[in-house]
Each structure stands twice: as C-alpha cells, then as structure tokens.
C-alpha cells in the first residue's frame, strides 16, 4: 500500500527534523516539517513545541470560600494543561502575593506568565478576580472579575472554563476551548442514547431517554441544541434536542431513512442524508424559512452521506461510494460537481469515512482504513498534505474542537476503548470518556451562556476522568 511504503521515509524525515529541532528554534522546525516531500505523513511525531510556563499560585480567599478557591484553581490548571498551549507550573504555588509582584523571582522559576487569582464576595455570590502578568516584560497583561455561581451549582465548572478560556486569549491571542462540550453516543436500554460531557471529561450526562437507537449527534452553532438521528418512531428520522429544556422535537422526517445531520456554521442550514429510491443522498434544509429540503448530491446507484460544512457554510465535505470505494468528496453546498478529496487507490479496499471540516477551514479530518484498520487522517481541502495521525488500535469518527487543533475520536487504543482527544500540533493524547461502545463524538462550539446545564450528573464527576 502506498501509505505503507512511505512510512520509513516519513519517520526518517521526522527524525531528521527532530535532530534539526535540537539545534534550531521551533520556527525553523515548522518549515522543515512542511517541506518533507511525502504525500502521506504517517504517525504523530511528538513535537516538544515550546509551551510557555504559566504559574498560578494558590488563590487568595476568605475561609468560607477556601474550598471554592481550590476547586477553581484545579479546574483552571487542568484547562491550561489540556490546552496544550501553556505549561502549568507546579513551582511557586505557595508564594505569598502581598505587595507588588516579584517579577525577578517568577522569571527565575521559569514562568513566562503569572496568573494571580483572588476570590471575594460571599459563598452565594463569589467573585473571581484574575490578573495575568507578563513575567518576561514585567507588566500586567490583563485583569478581569468573573461572577461565579456558588460552589455546588451545576454551572460552576462551565463558568470557570470560560474564565480560563479568556486567560488563554490574553496569553496566546486566541481563546481556549475549555468551555465546550462533546456530544456522543453510548449504549442505552433500547440500543443507544445521546450523551454529553465537558471538554475536560467531567460531568458526563445522558441527554435522551428514547429507549431506542439514537445516533450521530450534531451541535447547533450556538450550543443550545443537538440534532440527532433516532428510531424512536420506528422509521429513522432526525430530531432536535433542546439541551437546556431536555425536550425533543422532530426536525426532518422524509419518507425512508433520514440520517447524519449537521448544522452549517452560520446556522442557516441543516445538512443531512436521506434515502431516495433505495439509495442515500445529501440534502440541505433551510432552517431560517423552516422549509424546503433541497437535494445537494446527485449520484445514481450510489450513496452519499455524513456531510460536514466548511466554516463559510458554502462548501460541503461528504462521504460517497460512487467510485466503488468509499471516499471523501467536497462540493459547493448549492451547485457544482463533487470533487474527489482522498486518493483513489486501484484494487484496494478503500474505506474513508466520517469527514469533519475544521472550524479553521484548513484541514478535513476523517478516518480511513490502513490494512483494514480505521485510522484518523487529515487532509487539506484541496486534497494535498494527507497526514495519518493515529497508529494504535481502531480509530474512528473524528470531530474538531473550535480551535482547529484538537480532535476527539473513538479509539480502542490501549485495550480500553472510549473517546480520546488528540492535539494535532504536539501529538499529545488524553482519554475523555471510557466505554467500549462510546462513539460518534461531536465537539460543540464555544459555549458562552453559563445557564445551559441543568442537573449535576448523579455519578461521581471523576468517574470518567482518567
């Protein structure tokens, strides 16, 4: 197989690059990496890219808010770690903060950033004040006060994630993705139900109780709703779930099977697949006018499904078997021909599926078979720069985080199946949710309103967090 043949040059190239890295700054490495002339790069090479250290001493708080302060600090430190962009530092946790900031001390400890937190107010209405200091340039970068819900309130974690996302923006120029959730499918009494979990693996919650087969959850751009496919009325149709109210309503119910819903990023269209004359085609439904399912693919004797919109909502990536192999295609949402994205390999059992267009627009993730085992790949929307990101276990159904660098996917790696999060830039990987039949994840956009969660999951919030 073509990909296999290229494995050794790719590794050799990566090794060479790694050697260069030791002598050259990270920028030079990035250029070197992009010039490796292989059309397929195999595997994630762990790139110890520079992660600026951030020190976050213990949050000052009155006694009644002590527990809150410690909990908030733990959440924020974990967010920094999971961001793969900052390196939370253990050092200096107990440095006293009275008086002016001792920049030389923090510099000596190796910090690039220093985050000082104070919690004031009452247990019912705590206020978190965060100030970020640039240790290198010895100045106050930014400061903000956040009104938080009380400690046991179900919205606390999301509110704290939002604070840490803002700190991330102060430090790096682009917001973090801690205040996001992942919807997914897990086993239920009648087959499967839709669940969601916070981006840090806390608070897994069941969203549906249809006692039927529920599949393919897809977040609305505002994060208020999840569209999904369900057999609850016998014939598969697409339903819409209000995440706050936990109510569902039928969204699409054409004759035959309706499946694989996806919202356009501008929120005006729902893309989905439906059976027509025994095969499957992609349609779009106008959510603004609430009407008019319009057919988007035209391939007689073939199936097209699993659409995913480009960030501008004007193009679609999708899955089709029209060439006799399963491939990823792209096309204009309204008109135009489908263009083959993944390489056609003569006489091979090619099975490329589950495309997800990065919110940054620059890559399309999908899973494809390597010797019959699904692995995660990304490719540029023009078909260039195919990269294989996984090599261990079966890896399926990738979904991008809003930052366009983290991917959640189903994997059987390490003998313990579940959902895993991969940082495409560094190759760091972490387990999000365990469970063999936990699958079809969809990463939400950034969630801004803290009022969207209802009840704390009954389970120990740590139970699914590795």
């Amino acid at each position, binding site marked *: 197989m073509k990909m296999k043949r290229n494995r050794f040059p790719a590794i050799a190239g990566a090794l060479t690059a790694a050697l260069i890295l030791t002598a050259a700054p990270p920028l030079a490495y990035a250029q070197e990496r992009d010039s490796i002339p292989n059309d397929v790069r195999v595997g994630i090479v762990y790139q110890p890219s520079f992660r600026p250290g951030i020190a976050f001493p213990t949050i000052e708080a009155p006694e009644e808010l002590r527990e809150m302060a410690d909990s908030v600090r733990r959440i924020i430190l974990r967010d920094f770690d999971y961001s793969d962009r900052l390196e939370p530092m253990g050092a200096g946790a107990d440095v006293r903060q009275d008086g002016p900031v001792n920049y030389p001390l923090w510099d000596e400890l190796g910090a690039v950033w220093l985050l000082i937190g104070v919690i004031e107010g009452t247990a019912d209405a705590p206020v978190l004040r965060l100030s970020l200091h640039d240790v290198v340039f010895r100045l106050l970068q930014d400061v903000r006060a956040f009104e938080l819900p009380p400690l046991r309130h179900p919205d606390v974690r999301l509110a704290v994630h939002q604070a840490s996302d803002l700190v991330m923006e102060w430090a790096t120029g682009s917001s973090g993705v801690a205040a996001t959730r992942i919807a997914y499918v897990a086993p239920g009494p009648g*087959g*499967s139900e839709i669940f969601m979990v916070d981006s840090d693996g806390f608070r897994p919650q069941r969203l549906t109780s249809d006692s039927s*087969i529920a*599949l*393919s959850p897809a977040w609305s751009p505002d994060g208020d709703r999840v569209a999904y496919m369900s*057999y609850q009325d*016998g*014939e*598969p149709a697409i339903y819409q779930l209000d995440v706050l109210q936990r109510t569902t309503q039928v969204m699409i119910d054409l004759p*035959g*099977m309706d*499946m*694989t819903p996806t919202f356009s990023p501008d929120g005006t269209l729902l893309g989905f*697949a439906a*059976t027509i004359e*025994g*095969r*499957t085609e992609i349609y779009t439904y106008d959510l603004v006018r609430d009407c008019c399912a319009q057919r988007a693919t035209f391939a007689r004797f073939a*199936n097209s*499904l*699993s659409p995913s919109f480009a960030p501008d909502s004007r193009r679609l990536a999708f*899955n089709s*078997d029209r060439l006799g192999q*399963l491939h990823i295609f792209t096309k204009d949402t309204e008109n135009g021909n489908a263009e083959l994205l993944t390489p056609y390999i003569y006489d091979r*059992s090619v*099975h490329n*599926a*589950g495309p997800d267009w990065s919110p940054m627009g620059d890559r399309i993730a999908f*899973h494809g078979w390597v010797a*019959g085992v*699904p692995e995660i790949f990304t490719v540029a929307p023009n078909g260039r720069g195919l990269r294989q990101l996984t090599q261990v276990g079966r890896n*399926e*159904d990738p979904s991008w985080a809003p930052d366009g660098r983290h991917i959640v996917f189903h994997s059987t790696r390490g003998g313990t199946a579940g959902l895993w999060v991969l940082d495409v830039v560094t190759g760091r990987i972490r387990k999000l949710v365990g469970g063999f039949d936990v*699958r*079809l994840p969809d990463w939400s956009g950034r969630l801004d309103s803290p009022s969207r969660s209802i009840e704390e999951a009954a389970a120990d919030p740590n139970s699914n967090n590795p």
Partner: protein
Amino acid sequence: MSKWKNKLGWLGTMSLVVLVVGCGGSAPAPEPEPEPEPQMEQPTVDEEAERLAREEAERRRREEEEKRRAEAERQRVLTVLAERVHFDFDKSDIRADAEEVLQRKVTALREFPGLEIRIEGNCDERGSNEYNLALGQRRAEAVRRYLMSYGLEAGRFATISYGEERPLDRGTNEEAWALNRRADFTVTSSGGL
C-alpha cells in the same frame, strides 16, 4: 382405546400434511364427503344416540385436524418468511444461497397475497457506523427489488436499515461478521394466514 385413537388422529394429520405438501402446499383440505343418510330401518334409540355421538366425535376430530393443519401451514409459511439471507462483505448483491431462500419466500408470498413484510438490512461492525446505515438500506432494497422482480407488489414490502446496531453475534471474527451481514424479515400484516 383412546391411545389408539390419538395415534390414528396423528397419522391422519400426518397424511394430510403429506398430501398438502405433495400438492405444493396450496390445496385446501378436501371437504369431507357428507355422510350418506343411514337407511337403516327403525334404528333403536340407543343406536341412534350412539351414531350421533360418533358423528359428533368425528366432526370434532376433523375440526381439530383442520386447525392443526392450518397451524402447521402457518408455522411453515412463517418459518419460510423469517429465514434470513446473508451478504458478502461491503456488498448488497443477492448471493446464490440467498436466492434459494428468497425463492421460497416468493412462493409463500404468492400463496398468501395478504402477507406484508418488512425487510431489515444489517451489517457487520467493520465499516463506519454511519456508512453501515446506508449499506444496510442498500441490502434491504436489493432484497425488495429481487422479490418485486417476481411480480410481487411493491406495496407489500417496507425496508429499514439497522446498520451495525443489531448484531446477532457480538464477536469480532469472520464468523460473527458473516452472521451479522444479513437481512431479517418481519411480518407486518399476516392477512389471510
């Protein structure tokens, strides 16, 4: 005596079934010839009562037999209809062994025009979850088209795909996969049967 009678009854049923099967399973049981009116002169009251009782027993026996025959026939048709067909990996073509199974269904469906069935396409676990929904649909549709090609009405068939969501065997091996790549059949209207 009663043992012997039971045996006779069973034999009778068997012979009828054999007869029915011999006729292609389509011939209804022949109406029993009406007993000729007995021309006996002046039957005694006892004899008359005995004759009536005998006739009654005979009638009941025939009814029972008829019921049993119908039930056996029903079971036979249901078994034929429920018989699964299997597919090759990532294919929806009707295999030769599946064709035999479907031929039996064609016969049964012709015999009982009131029967309606749902064809349920299923897949093994290997393809993508979502693609398997489409593949299962294609399999159900291939079966439907095959049955329709024998002149059976389209309206008698509904199709649905369960993708890889309803495996018969949860194993991760060739055997399990081969078993799971299938179409199941559910009778949705048993009119006339």
